[in-house]
């Protein structure tokens, strides 16, 4: 589905991502973990087209996608959410999702129908007439996901969608992510909350200083010495 080959990104002299390679299989939930500043969000920005790689390749369904603008990549079938949520504040929740749904349809009525369906799917329908700026952080995170889904992606990039949620919201978020996978959508997720990442991921890729330190099943990664040293701490050993 998605293949990253020797991906490298330098900001001036700083190597934010260095020779990173991984492969996300269709239908998987693929976790990307690492300490703060490890380069996770940079990887997302590279895949999504906000940044262009210094070197290396990104292949989506076998075709190179680096160099395209974000809107083109979205139309190809890769949607994303933002760690720092970006609600369209002075639009209602429904309008937010409609604006996204227009990615695939042109008619106002069909876009509205699609948006309502997606809101229903993400259990955000009860907020549809609220202004996006009036939502709680939990609902804003959910709106990010809803909006990404409304573009009908094949691959969705979730950037710390569970951060800042309370325990109930956390369980709901996990349930939603699983529900999205059951729709046949491949998921690449960055997450700090181990409860989330360990319980839902099929594979996990751990990075630090922009480089790979381990990859494998959640169990393998949790037991990896390098990962424990860099990130998890003794408790997970």
């Amino acid at each position, binding site marked *: 589905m998605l293949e990253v080959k020797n991906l490298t990104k330098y900001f001036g002299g700083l190597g934010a991502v260095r020779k990173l390679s991984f492969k996300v299989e269709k239908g998987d939930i693929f976790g990307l973990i690492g300490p703060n500043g490890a380069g996770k969000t940079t990887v997302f920005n590279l895949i*999504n087209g*906000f940044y262009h790689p210094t070197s290396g390749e990104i292949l989506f369904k076998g075709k190179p996608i680096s160099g395209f*603008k*974000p*809107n*083109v990549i*979205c*139309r190809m079938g890769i*949607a*994303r959410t*933002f760690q720092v949520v*970006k*609600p*369209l*504040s*002075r*639009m209602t929740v429904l*309008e937010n999702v*409609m*604006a*996204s749904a*227009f*990615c695939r349809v*042109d008619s*106002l009525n069909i*876009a509205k129908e699609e948006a309502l369906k997606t809101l229903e799917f993400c259990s955000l329908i009860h907020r549809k007439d609220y202004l996006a700026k009036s939502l709680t952080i939990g609902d804003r995170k959910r709106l990010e996901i809803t*909006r990404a889904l409304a*573009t009908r992606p094949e691959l969705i990039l979730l950037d710390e969608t569970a951060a800042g949620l309370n325990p109930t919201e956390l369980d709901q978020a996990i349930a939603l992510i699983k529900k999205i996978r059951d729709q046949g959508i491949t998921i690449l997720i960055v997450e700090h909350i181990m409860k989330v990442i360990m319980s839902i991921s099929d594979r996990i890729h751990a990075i630090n200083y922009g480089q790979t330190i381990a990859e494998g099943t959640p169990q393998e990664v949790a037991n990896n010495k390098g990962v424990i040293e860099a990130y998890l701490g003794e408790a997970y050993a």
Partner: protein
Amino acid sequence: MERKRQFKNLLPWLILVILALVPLFERNPYLLHMMIMVLIWICLGQSWNLLGGFTGQVSFGHATFYGVGAYSAGLLYFHKEISTWYGMILGPIMAMAFAVPIGLICFRLRGAYFALALLALAEVLRLVATNWISFTNGSVGILIVPVVSKISYYYIALALAAVSFYVIYRVIHSKWGFYFIAIREDQDAAESMGINTTRYKLISLLISAFFTGLAGAFYMNYMAFIDPHVVFSLVDVSIMMILVVMLGGAGTFYGPAIGAVIMIVLSEVFRAYFGHANLLILGMLIIFIIVFIPDGVIEIRRFLKRKKYA
């Protein structure tokens, strides 16, 4: 609730009918002149608002499109003795032609570049129109003989305002409108939702330039005289457009119309009563409105309500 909405939907048509009937009862040329100016400014306010209020791309130089529209009409007559009415076709097209390169260059960037580039372009065009005497007749301007009666001009102005109103209403309530507002709210989010932000900013600019150019061409026909300092004016056109929109309510649909009425009527009244101090008084009033009703006069109800409960 349902009744209220029905009334709301009917209101614009009702106003249109009333405005269409006005000349049957009122033929005072001064009053008609005022109303024509208000109608022109409603069209200009709508144009600026589409780009500045809804798409979030603030322009400090819409006089560019106004002047280009007006001069397109004027130069047709000046050089070829072709009726300035054909300018109402050529004017908006020329205005869009000027908009394309500016949009293509500036909309790739963010921040103040677009606003400043247009500001500069309007000033450059004003100087060109002043100094390229063989082509534009310089500061002397272009004078034509008006051909139709004031009432005819009134109806054309009404059509101008109504059409710009209708078209922009339809645009805002379509996919394009959603995209424009999404770009205003967050460009990164918009881009990652599959919106080609450069393209849609350009579309918004083109529609805005079209109607501004159209209004400019009509102004040439109506006033029968233009010179560079009138139609390319920074204060009287570019800034005035921003004030009309801000005063009425940027990013709202009826705001610019309300702003146009207030600005045109007030500046006229103040000129009559306060003599040389009229700009001073008008300036103070604008400051007052911006400080106390920052969302525009259209939000005055919300403003009053908040006051009461405070």
